[in-house]
């Protein structure tokens, strides 16, 4: 689906000599769920902006469905690769939520009746039906974020990229978002999230691509990557709190690759029962 081949990237107006990406290679298959993680300035957003052609590699190549991003317009790519920006306020401009969601569909030339159907579908999908005629500026932060997401999902892109989806969301919203993303992925959509929210990733359990200083330092299953203190240290992320506890209790003969609270409960109970016997 998305093939990144030894991509280097330097911002044209940035400080000279500072490469945001230094030879990144990555393959994202159809239907995969990938979390791109790393500290601020690691190159996460720069990397995903290559996926829909907003940025083109200075060296190397990015292929989407076997077509180089250099040979195709951003609009054509956007039809396949939906990108939800971090701050919904950077894209909301319409008078009603309905119009906001229709914007992308209009740009892609959807016919009026298909367009109406798709808008209704997207509104229901994100539980926004009651706000159909409301101004997006009157909504709360979490709702605005959902409108932004709906406005991208409306045209049903094959791949959805979410840049920092959990920032500014309360616990409940995060949980709804998590279930929604997992469900989307289960229905076959390729999902890429960019985040440094370790707990959120631990609960989702996707493939984790860890970046530091413009390079990929680790790539693999969330459980493997997030519970490896060495890897975490290199990319300046902290393992999930549950994992930290288990990393500190190795003397008791407990496993260290626990990232989920439910799982932790089970492991601990088993251990305690064993002690009793």
């Amino acid at each position, binding site marked *: 689906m998305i093939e990144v081949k030894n991509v280097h990237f330097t911002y044209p107006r940035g400080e000279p000599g500072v490469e945001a990406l230094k030879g990144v290679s990555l393959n994202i298959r159809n239907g995969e769920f990938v979390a791109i993680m790393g500290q601020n300035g690691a190159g996460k957003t720069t990397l995903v*902006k290559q996926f*829909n052609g*907003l940025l083109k590699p200075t060296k190397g190549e990015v292929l989407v469905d076997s077509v180089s991003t250099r040979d195709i*317009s*951003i*609009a054509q790519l*956007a*039809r396949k690769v*939906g*990108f939800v*920006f971090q*701050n919904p*306020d*950077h*894209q*909301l*401009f319409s008078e009603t939520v309905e119009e906001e969601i229709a*914007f*992308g569909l209009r*740009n*892609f030339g959807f016919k009026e009746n298909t367009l109406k159907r798709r808008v209704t579908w997207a509104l229901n999908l994100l539980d926004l039906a009651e706000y159909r005629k409301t101004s997006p*500026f009157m909504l709360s932060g979490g709702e605005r974020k959902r409108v932004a997401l709906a*406005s*991208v999902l409306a*045209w049903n892109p094959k791949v959805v990229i979410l840049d920092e989806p959990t920032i500014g969301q309360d616990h409940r919203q995060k949980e709804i978002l998590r279930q929604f993303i997992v469900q989307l992925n289960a229905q076959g959509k390729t999902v890429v999230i960019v985040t440094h929210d370790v707990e959120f990733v631990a609960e989702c359990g996707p493939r984790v691509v860890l970046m530091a200083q413009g390079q990929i330092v680790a790539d693999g299953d969330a459980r493997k990557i997030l519970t490896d203190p060495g890897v975490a240290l290199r990319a300046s992320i902290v393992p999930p709190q549950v994992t930290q506890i288990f990393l500190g209790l190795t003397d008791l003969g407990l496993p260290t690759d626990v990232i989920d609270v439910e799982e932790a409960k089970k492991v601990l109970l088993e251990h305690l029962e064993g002690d009793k016997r």
Partner: protein
Amino acid sequence: MSVFEGFRFRHVSSPIHRRDPRVKFLYVLVMFIAAVMFNELPVLLVLFFLQVPFVLVAGVQRQWLRSLRGAMFLVTFLFVFNLFFGYISPGTVPGGVSPLEYAFSMSLRFLVLVESFSVFFLTTSPDHLSLALEQSRVPYEFTFAFTTAVRFVPVLAEEAQTIMDAQKARGLELEKGNFMKRVRNYIPILIPLIVSAIRRSLELAEAMESRGWGAAKKRTNLYVLKIREADLMLIIISAILLATAVYVRYFVTIPSITMILSK
């Protein structure tokens, strides 16, 4: 965003950068007055090239050229507009000047204004600017509002870029369609930009207020501006420029290029 780029200050030092901002502003003001006084092409050409040495001494030629390039859209607009009305109502064009020459001089006048302000902003740090305003007894509220506006230009430019990216990711094609469509294409960029600027200003006001803004009636400054010898030089240059402009305006008949060519 190349127009903004042409006004963004960078920290370098040159004889022009070190001048007292008040004196530099005086010079810009003189250039401004001179440009408005004349609509004759030969004089405007002289005014235009008069700034080149300043730009070279300050070493900002690259950014300066960029600001001129950024102004090209408006310049072209002015040119076409003046040419059009020059032909359909010749009364607007002074005698002995062809509408073409008049359109040229109107566009050049605009360029002279842009370049003088560009030189000023390229060589004056926002901090110096606010100092200059404050020490010219402008109330601090105004000074602050002004410098904040200047300081936020690059922030806004960056934000505009992000918004453009966000809308392109939703299939917006800015370069598509005829002229009116292209103008309308910018609505999805401008609305989020304005809304977030207003939001930001409200937040800024609250943050300032919670840090005790305006608590002290009388403010003092760490740096105090002083007029040096070189500043005096610039004042004299400005005065000579103004005097020459007034003299030429009232006592010299300026030949138009049209007349020179028709001889």
